[in-house]
């Protein structure tokens, strides 16, 4: 059994100079066969494994990761968590996730530092106001806390925003979800990995999937750099590389993979105590517990797997930041990076079975997958275990692109795709 982390274990280990901490997870070699294999050791993949083991008693499973766990978009995002989505289907999905977030540190016995400091979305023109009010009303009726703030209330909630009526696109108001906030992204992957490992899940790093073996319409296993592993169920959660895996079985997905950039400033003392997003002026910002301003930039419009976007995107984002926060002009960009996000035409994800038996896809989260991590894992685990979607992810099937029953959330993303 694992040592439980507690204030006492901290002290005990302090006396032994922290030399007795147990491994957070094992480092096993792959077995010959598993009941299910999750491709992708990011937050969503590890959460899927965790809930397969915890809720569906599937413990003879493995997560295979081509690099190190949490090294993809889990470790590259701006950590924003919110559930103020417009459509019922999305609201159901993201609020399910938010509710899990609220008890996640306790559930995992690992502090993921979920900080409900609120997320505010700003309106800069009359159509923004209509759209955001529409969302606020829909949220309220869906049981999601959301309130409309007028310009003065926006200013009061976040005093450093430039709310002058004389700027190019003045702030006309905004919506606030107080239960929303941020979490420590790496800790989410590590916490789920530790939890899944404790229940017997094999987490196999540095193990790249090279092919998927099929027998007719069913999957039989995966070819990896560590050899062939037999399984009847494969859950693909390889954000950024979903199409690469899909192409292994000649499956085309409605996805394009594009570089999404983010940056942080040097750390400073607390100056902004919430998350502020602006769609029209195209920027979002929060401050990490370390003091860095965490700023999300946009996606480039071309397909790229390089994890590097163009400088124009960063420049455009900081332009918007200085428009809304002119006090940040002398702040310095410390680090910028890119991740690869796969984007669906309707800006909503896919959590779905496919026409190939035993093959499941969880992808297309675009710029906003981190917030859904626990919910996505839970619902994907349900879908894999039962070979049927949970009612909360039924609308996020692949078939919607054929029928036309899309979940168009373009208005919900801070940055238009």
């Amino acid at each position, binding site marked *: 059994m694992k040592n439980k982390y507690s204030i006492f274990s901290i002290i005990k280990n302090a006396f032994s*100079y*922290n*030399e007795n*901490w*147990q*491994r*957070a*997870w*094992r*480092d096993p070699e792959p077995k010959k066969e598993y009941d299910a294999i999750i491709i992708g050791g990011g937050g969503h993949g590890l959460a899927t494994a965790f809930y397969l083991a915890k809720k569906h008693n599937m413990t003879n499973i493995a997560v295979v990761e081509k*690099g*190190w*766990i*949490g*090294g993809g978009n889990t*470790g590259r995002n701006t950590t924003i968590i919110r559930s103020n989505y417009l459509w019922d289907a999305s609201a159901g999905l993201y609020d399910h996730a938010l509710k899990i977030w609220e008890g996640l540190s306790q559930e995992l016995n690992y502090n993921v530092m979920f900080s409900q400091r609120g997320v505010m979305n700003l309106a800069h*023109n*009359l*159509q923004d*106001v*209509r*759209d*955001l*009010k*529409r*969302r*606020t*009303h*829909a949220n*309220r*009726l869906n*049981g999601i806390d959301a309130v409309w703030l007028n310009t003065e209330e926006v200013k009061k909630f976040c005093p450093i925003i430039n709310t002058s009526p004389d*700027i*190019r*696109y003045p702030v006309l108001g905004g919506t606030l979800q107080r239960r929303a906030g941020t979490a420590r992204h*790496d800790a989410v992957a*590590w916490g789920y990995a530790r939890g899944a490992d404790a229940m017997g899940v094999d987490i196999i*790093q540095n193990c790249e999937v090279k092919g998927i073996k099929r027998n007719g319409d069913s999957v039989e296993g995966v070819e990896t750099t560590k050899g062939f592993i037999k399984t009847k169920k494969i859950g693909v959660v390889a954000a950024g590389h979903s199409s690469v895996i899909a192409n292994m079985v000649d499956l085309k997905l409605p996805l394009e993979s594009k570089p999404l950039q983010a940056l942080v*400033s*040097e*750390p400073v003392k607390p100056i902004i105590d919430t998350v502020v997003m602006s769609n029209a002026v195209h920027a979002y910002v929060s401050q990490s517990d370390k003091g860095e301003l965490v700023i999300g930039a946009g996606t480039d419009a071309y397909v790229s797997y390089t994890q590097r976007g163009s400088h124009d995107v*960063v*420049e455009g984002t*900081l*332009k*918007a930041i200085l*428009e809304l926060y*002119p006090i*940040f*002009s*002398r*702040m*310095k*960009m410390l*680090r*910028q990076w890119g991740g690869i996000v796969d984007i669906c035409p309707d800006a909503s994800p896919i959590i779905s079975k496919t026409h190939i038996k035993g093959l499941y896809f969880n992808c297309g989260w675009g710029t906003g997958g981190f917030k859904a991590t626990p919910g996505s894992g839970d619902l994907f685990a349900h879908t894999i275990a039962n070979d049927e979607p949970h009612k909360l992810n039924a609308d996020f099937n692949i078939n919607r692109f054929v*029928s*036309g*029953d899309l979940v*168009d959330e373009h208005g919900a993303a801070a940055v238009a795709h």
Partner: protein
Amino acid sequence: MGKTKPFLDFQNDSTANDIKLALREGFKSIEHVKRYTTTGMATDQGKLSNMHALGIIAETAGVKMGELGTTTFRPPYTPLTFGTIVGRNVGEFFDITRRTPIHDWHVENKAKFENVGQWKRAWYYPIDNENMHEAVQRESKAARDSAGILDASTLGKIDIQGSDASEFLNRVYTNAWSKLEIGKCRYGLMLNEDGMVYDDGVTTRLSENHYLMTTTTGGAANVLSKLEDYLQTEWPELDVYLTSVTDHYGTVSICGPNSKKILSKIIPDLDLSDKEFPHMSFKNALIDSIRCRVMRISFTGEHSYEINIQASYAKSVWEKCFEAGKEFNITPYGTETMHLLRAEKGFIIAGQDTDGTMTPVDLQMDWIISKKKYDFIGKRSLYRSDTIREDRKQLVGLITDDPKEILEEGAQIVAETNKQPVEMLGHVTSSYFSPNLNKSIALAVVKNGKKLKGQKMFVPMENKIINVTITDTVFLDKENKRLNA
């Protein structure tokens, strides 16, 4: 190592012991160690610490340093001020501001402006201490009772020429264009390939192979790009040339029962009779020897003209119209009044009453879909299993039981009030108090709305529930009598 403090990352205070702790806990990859201990993540980005961190990892794991690999060095090399990255693109240079050629007149006449895309549009013109509501009530009443004048210069304008121009329009709009007579105007809906309404506007046939298309203000650039894309990549065989002329012309729109009299004062030699110059037609004309195009088209339901004139003359023509209209109490009105007037007539605004999920059928505009045309952009998508569903959300009118109660745009509509969770059937897209009808009116999209006319519905607000009734989308002058008044 005991109780020692051999520092590795001096700024973030991580020690060699911290690295070993991370390794013991199973964080083996250099990236994991870095993130777990924050080594190398301070403002010097590990310039001094990274190599030692690697060394300790290699030593502890018993591998060669070269096999571990480095972490990625990301830009910038040293921290860079946001100010430098942004340069001069701050304040007034944050984004360009587009102003119409008549802008100065609006400023002189105390207009309040709204941002529409990059444009500054006159929103309303308060007199004395009027608030927006009061100004809009006055403006819209004046436009219906006598005459109103609107700066419509921001509408996108695309000049379309070539021997295949008609065929081109056939393919991009849902309705048919080949038979449109020269000198006539027609309203068109443009869809995305997914069948959803994308943009709309009136297009005029100037001559056999020459059209002038108008688009929404916000959609102009995207529509042009989209049309160029189809022309160059899908239909290169078509002989069509597109030119954006939005900035070349100013557009003065005068409407109201006295608009004809005003126009006749300005262009006395133009025959304005309904026979010679009927609704949805166009004439070339001269104003003080300046050539202009006059369209008799209407977005308000009133008898109305749009004068398109070279941008540099637009302000003088506007002033001329204003002078000529003074005896009729011509009243300048802004976008807010324009929105109100069109809502009274049930005319949609693409982007306000549509949101990328509405088909023409959903808008109850089935009439605009040509049954004869073999294909047009988006046609196939209209016949998918979800788009042919009868109970999709459809555009309807709403009136409040209390005629004084103005609904909030964006408010949700439900059929029941005591159920939890409650099913949202739709939302209010446009809402105004109509001075001409003396009651509150609204447009909304409601699930299965087409069949629910006359049904009672509820709009639950935070602190109250508003009772409403679903109606037809046209609130005023259903017979279109005013167009020829």
